[in-house]
């Protein structure tokens, strides 16, 4: 490291000449113009940024609505079974809706948005193939429950509900932040 002061200090130590001052005014003027242009120009990226933040929030909200509908169907199935509600055929319909919603999940999560009010883990995008596999497993489990519920064996329905619940849990374990890290608990 050579023991030399930076050039602006050395030049100041000599004192500014008139030519230097004139140069400075020209530079300062140019700088003002540039800054003015930049501030106008910066409105454009700011607007784009704001729009993309709003867009990201909309993506998060959409994903949460899709997953919320899945949860509502699972809750409804649980409600029917645990309270023995007389709703013939309802479990199969709820299960079919859950199977159909699997087709919404891939597109809903395709865009990487992992910051903000979301519990989506970055692993969704770093291991997209595994995420898609988890969705496929979930779809299979939901279709399995729909088929079992159309049959007449309550034990088969019970087992299919558990299997479906485990597919939810399996995917959540890998791809959803645990409650300790949830934005809801911050």
């Amino acid at each position: 490291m050579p023991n030399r002061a930076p050039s602006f200090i050395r030049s100041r130590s000599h004192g500014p000449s008139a030519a230097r001052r004139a140069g400075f005014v020209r530079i300062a003027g140019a700088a003002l113009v540039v800054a003015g242009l930049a501030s106008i120009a910066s409105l454009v990226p700011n607007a784009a940024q704001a729009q993309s933040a709003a867009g990201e929030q909309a993506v998060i909200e959409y994903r949460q609505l899709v997953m919320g509908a899945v949860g509502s169907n699972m809750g409804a199935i649980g409600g029917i079974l645990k309270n023995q509600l007389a709703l013939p055929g309802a479990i199969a319909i709820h299960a079919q809706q859950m199977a159909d919603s699997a087709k919404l999940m891939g597109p809903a999560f395709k865009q990487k948005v992992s910051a903000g009010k979301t519990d989506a883990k970055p692993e969704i995008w770093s291991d997209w193939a595994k995420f898609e596999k988890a969705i496929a497993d979930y779809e299979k489990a939901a279709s399995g429950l729909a088929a079992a519920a159309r049959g007449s064996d309550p034990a088969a329905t019970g087992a299919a509900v558990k299997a479906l619940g485990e597919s939810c849990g399996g995917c959540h374990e890998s791809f959803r932040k645990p409650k300790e890290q949830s934005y809801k608990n911050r």
Partner: protein
Amino acid sequence: MKRAGVHVGVGGGVAVPIARLVGLAGRVGPAALVALAGLLAATSAAPAVASERSASSDVRLAQSDEAARHVAEEIARAKAAGFGRTTPLERGRRIFHATGGCTCHTNFPGEGDGAPPLAGGRALETPFGVYYSTNITPDRETGIGGWQTGDFVRAMREGLSPSGEHYFPVFPYTSFTGLSDADLADLKAYLDSLPAVRRANRAPEAWPPFSWRFVIAGWKVLNFTSARIESDPARDAAWNRGRYLVEAAAHCGECHTPRTSSGGLDRTMWLAGSKDGPEGELAPNITPDEKTGIGEWSINDLVWYLETGLKPDGDDTQGLMSEVIRHGYANLSREDREAIAGYLLSQPPIANRVRGGD
């Protein structure tokens, strides 16, 4: 008086109460450090106290009018409920499931679903270092196959090994102390029927003095009472069964109750949730408070939850709770799950919002 006659041990914990003590020290500062110093000072007198205590415990174990009467009552109650036709192994399996399947003794986090069941080695991380769960398979050398039933009872009730060493309270003997003689004997018989796995226990990788077992003698003086859970005659059989399951076997309070500065359970906040649950998990408020607890859950909701891990809103369960449901509570009888649910919902509601991430 719901809590009259409840004599479960206080303190202890799935996640090393001493660890919590340090966690608390970090938060509340000097006062807790003074408490810690006090605790350590108490241990200098501890060996004597401990031997007195274990002697008196032995007397209590051996002295048996009261215990025998209790066992007889319990057997009568079990017979009345139709359990007289079961074998010790079936009854033992039931208690095993009521504990949550002893999943702390299986190294799921380290070895996945293929971890050898109950062979120990699960790392329980604490601010003092890492404690490892032990091998409770019937392997005679590395497990508990060589133990007599009395050794097992003493470990579960007094937190003492067959050679008289103190167990670190990461092992929740503070709750298991409430279990009955008959259930402990059956549980040992059931564990003995499972496959033996040869795997040596690992010493804790903790710093002195927290790797010294005698320190625990002092901790016990502050936080542990060895006592059974007696039936409350003013309550019905289902409620008493629920209390027994919740407070002793299922040891719910060990995770779902916050700790005091000395690392014991804060009984004034019984089951009201802890943000310092085991393995760093957040343990929710499970008192029937409507806003912050499970006050809006019905008995059916809880029974279903304990069977499937699915909450009323359809969400699933993660973490340790999902393990103890899958390997334990899901395999209980419906009556036992109903008893747990009924007891939990009969507890006084406590408003306490448990939040993590801070």
